[in-house]
């Protein structure tokens, strides 16, 4: 069950990343026919991120303690001391960015250039931050792995 929760949070995180990237590309080429898709994708990205956040939060509060002990005893304590500590707080900023995306994307981006620029910057920032979260997650998982290999 522990592993399923962990995999599910990665799955929904990647879904959020892809949806934000899709919104960015659609906004780059904004046309009247794209607007409904942009709105749906921005809502999908926010829903995926909220799901990932809630699943990851549950896992972090309930299961992470044992992983943390393994990491801190292993050769990569930085996987917790820096990467997990920053990830658990930066992810809140990512959650707010993608939650903001449907609000900014509510305007007609094909005619409203200001709103289009806002959506481009917010979606682009969300993609970069989501990639960072994926990378940090990989380092944390590796921290557990090298900790277990050492024991």
């Amino acid at each position, binding site marked *: 069950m522990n592993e399923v929760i962990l995999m599910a949070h990665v799955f929904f995180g990647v879904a959020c990343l892809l949806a934000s990237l899709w919104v960015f590309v659609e906004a780059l080429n904004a046309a009247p026919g794209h607007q409904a898709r942009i709105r749906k994708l921005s809502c999908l990205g926010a829903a995926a991120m909220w799901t990932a*956040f809630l699943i990851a*939060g549950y896992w*972090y*509060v309930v299961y992470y303690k044992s992983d943390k002990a393994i990491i801190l005893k292993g050769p990569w304590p930085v996987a917790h*001391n*820096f990467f997990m*500590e*920053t990830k*658990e*707080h*930066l992810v*809140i*900023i990512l*959650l*707010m*960015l993608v*939650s*903001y995306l449907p*609000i*900014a994307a*509510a*305007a007609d981006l094909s005619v*409203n*250039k*200001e*709103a289009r*620029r*806002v959506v481009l*910057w*917010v979606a682009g*920032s969300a993609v970069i*931050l989501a990639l960072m979260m994926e990378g940090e997650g990989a380092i944390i998982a590796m921290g557990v792995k090298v900790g277990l290999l050492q024991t």
Partner: protein
Amino acid sequence: MENTNLSRYTVSFGISLALASVADGVLVVAKEKSSPVMSGMQRLTGHHWITHSAVILLLFVICGLVLAQLDGGKGIKITGGRLICAVLSGVAAGGLIIFGFYLIGD
């Protein structure tokens, strides 16, 4: 006031996002440096991270709704460029406080 094509919620929640991002970073430093703050946050919900997330997300929602009601319900009027600058500055500042703290401050 400047002319803008942005909706009042786009502006208010954008500014709120910037403020909440900085608050996220400041709260990290506060709870890690002050044990009464950390223990208080743990007591409130059972885990400091749950309290931290709830405080920041509530701040984001409440600030966004309140800022949208300013100027007689018309909200704040700023240009897209200034809003983007505010959002990116807030997100970068929040991120740098968190990274910087765990890199050198902790």
